[in-house]
């Protein structure tokens, strides 16, 4: 495997802003930031803009608390802090999705306090179990298209949109291919490395990212995929984000190998493609409904639990590690029943309460290691 390319991808994930500032200066492209999750990046790309998924900051919170109370989850506070303090002039505009009370308020606070040339709220359906949701999302996607066109002054053509979709599909396919190699080979790639690559995809222009992934994948040979020693303990990750990123290192150190996930900074970003035949806008909408369950969005039955159990069984995982962002209300309501249900099915589940800005991870490390050891003994 070409270590140089891998390092390039990892350096993007570990500090995208200086690199992207240089790229932006040279390319003269406009960058549009979106918070998690589900904004149709293909549409922003087809408008000639560069989509960027904001995943907060682990630097100290200084200004966000003036606008948003401390019992808002650290995901929201860190996203706001990033654009209030650390990267205030980096973005040219924003498309912020709404899925719950926090993201709804965040849109208003952001619009009023952060400088922008372009701002749009993207009102995602908060139910996906009835026909009205699909029709609504199509209306909202069309509205976003019109709004982007007004901003750039250029029409988004069907051919242009299909080209962007192709580019994004290709990126997702490359990432899924890497994931499959990680799943099937014992020591092909660590958890932190792999998930950092997904993060880098959310941040780096897709054309360039695809080139990097192609170089990386073509450099992988049999020795990289050859099993060496124990496989480790196969686990599935659940949640939204994996922050601070060092918790992924702790999984690596503890011999826990991620073979599946339902994270927004993970499978939700790469799992489903947009169909290339038919109306591209409808195809973008269809993709949204193929993504699987997400905690704020209501679906039939108990999809979150069913999907997680399916991920465990399909991937022959031994346990679930759930990243719970403190003060995330949606997760707060899911967890007690989810834990009971997984345990009833005989699947150990370990809940890690995380927050951005956490610097002392010794306690988390000890608990994850102990969990790993208990699984190894079974």
């Amino acid at each position, binding site marked *: 495997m070409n270590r140089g390319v891998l390092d390039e991808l990892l350096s993007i994930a570990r500090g995208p802003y200086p690199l992207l500032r240089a790229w932006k200066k040279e390319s003269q492209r406009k960058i549009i930031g979106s918070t998690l999750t589900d904004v149709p990046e293909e549409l922003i790309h087809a408008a000639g803009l560069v989509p960027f998924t904001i995943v907060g900051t682990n630097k100290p919170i200084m200004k966000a608390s003036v606008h948003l109370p401390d019992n808002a989850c650290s995901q929201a506070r860190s996203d706001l802090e990033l654009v209030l303090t650390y990267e205030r002039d980096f973005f040219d505009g924003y498309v912020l999705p709404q899925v719950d009370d926090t993201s709804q308020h965040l849109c208003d606070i952001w619009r009023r306090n952060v400088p922008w040339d372009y701002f749009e709220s993207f009102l995602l359906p908060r139910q996906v179990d009835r026909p009205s949701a699909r029709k609504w999302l199509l209306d909202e996607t069309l509205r976003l298209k019109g709004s982007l066109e007004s901003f750039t002054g250029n029409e988004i053509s069907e051919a242009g949109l299909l080209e962007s979709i192709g580019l994004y599909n290709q990126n997702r396919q490359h990432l899924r291919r890497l994931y499959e190699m990680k799943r099937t080979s014992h020591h092909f790639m660590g958890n932190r490395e792999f998930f950092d690559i997904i993060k880098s995809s959310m941040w780096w222009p897709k054309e360039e990212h695809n080139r990097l992934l192609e170089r990386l994948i073509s450099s992988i040979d049999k020795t990289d995929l050859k099993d060496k020693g124990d496989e480790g303990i196969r686990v599935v990750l659940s949640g939204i984000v994996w922050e601070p990123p060092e918790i992924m290192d702790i999984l690596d150190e503890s011999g826990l190998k991620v073979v599946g996930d339902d994270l927004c900074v993970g499978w939700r970003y790469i799992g489903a493609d947009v169909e290339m035949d038919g109306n591209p806008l409808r195809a973008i909408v269809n993709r949204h409904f193929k993504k699987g369950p997400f905690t704020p969005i209501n679906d039939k039955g108990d999809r979150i639990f069913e999907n997680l159990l399916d991920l465990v069984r399909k991937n022959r995982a031994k346990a679930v590690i759930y990243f719970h962002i403190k003060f995330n209300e949606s997760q*707060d309501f899911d967890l007690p029943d989810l834990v009971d249900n997984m345990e009833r099915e005989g699947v150990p589940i370990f809940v890690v309460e995380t927050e951005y800005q956490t610097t002392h991870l010794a306690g988390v490390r000890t608990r994850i290691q102990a969990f790993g050891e208990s699984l190894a003994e079974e």
Partner: protein
Amino acid sequence: MIAEQAEKRPKAKDVMKQLTRDYYEGALKAHEENRFIAYTTAVSPVELFYAHDIIPIYPENHSVMCLSGRMMPRLSLEIEKRGYTSHLCAYARSDLGYREVGESPIGGIPDPDFLLACNAQCFTLTKWFQVLSRRYGVQVFVFDTPQYIRKKDARKNIIRYVEQQLSEMIEALEELTGRKFDYDRLKEVLGYSAEASRLYKEFLDLASIKPSPISIFDALIHMAITVYLRGTKEAVDYYRLLIEEIKEEKVSKGIGVIPNERFRLYWENLPIWFKFRDHSEFLAAHNAVILTSLYAHAWSYDFDVSDPMRTLAENYTSVFSNVELEERAERAISLFRQYSLNGNIMFLNRSCKAVTFGVLELKDMITEETGIPALVFESDMGDPRFYSEVQIRTRLEAYLETLDRLGVG
């Protein structure tokens, strides 16, 4: 003659007690009588339930009774043992705790056959009702109302989406009951809702009179009827009676709700239910009275009965908690003007994220426009563990002293 009529007329508070008793007793017998129970949220198109002879039950209202009856933190502790955190909505904690221990000030509420969560009011309800859905094996119908942003094209689409969901809800109710929905009955129910809402607003607006014959505490007590009985003739009759009574007993005689009214205050957020009366008395002793709140106005609907689906969609989507902050601020500022308010108490309610997350921003917007300083404090609407008596009283006193120093009132 008029005095005789007034003597014969029942007292509004007695009528309210009777209506509440009848409503809950009727609900408890519903399943014996083969009628269906729908759990719903305070801001939701309840007219569809009344039109289809389904009894709406509001777990939130039951929670208010538990919180006012000081059953917290006991109920919360029961569910905290199960892993629910103490920073969730106090209504939800109280309700889930009630379901664990079965204790209730009114002997409980019946189990649901249908769950409707309208997220215009808050997103929390969806998650809370999902827990109930798993418990009772009943699907949640999320009545999804995207934020009513101030863009013409978006608003047109939003109303279309919400109207489509009203049709989906009707289909779901027909499936539940096996009966066809009666659209003529919906018009009749909506007529009652429209009139009850108009009268409820007229009642709230009595607080614009100087001295005010009512306070926010009266509003919060009497709003219960429009929350759970709008859509019925009883609600209309009730508000007529209430308004007549207040006009006769107080307005006509120039009697205010407190003797020496000086500070006419706005309150942002839900009340602190278990401190309800204490706050009223404490403020009155300082010649201050809270007169209104956007929260109390959340049920001041303006229905157009000629187009039921459209008007239901518009009214339930445009509630104060679902509009952009600028619009919410404008609505609050118009209350300052209409009610001649001269003080502003802004409560950061740790267990209501939907209303609270905009408050810090809202405070600046209102102060900038009105020039009236605001008191901001944090606590919880239902959990005394997060209420600091001394600190809050001291802050209220200091705030009133500030108003005094500024020569307000």
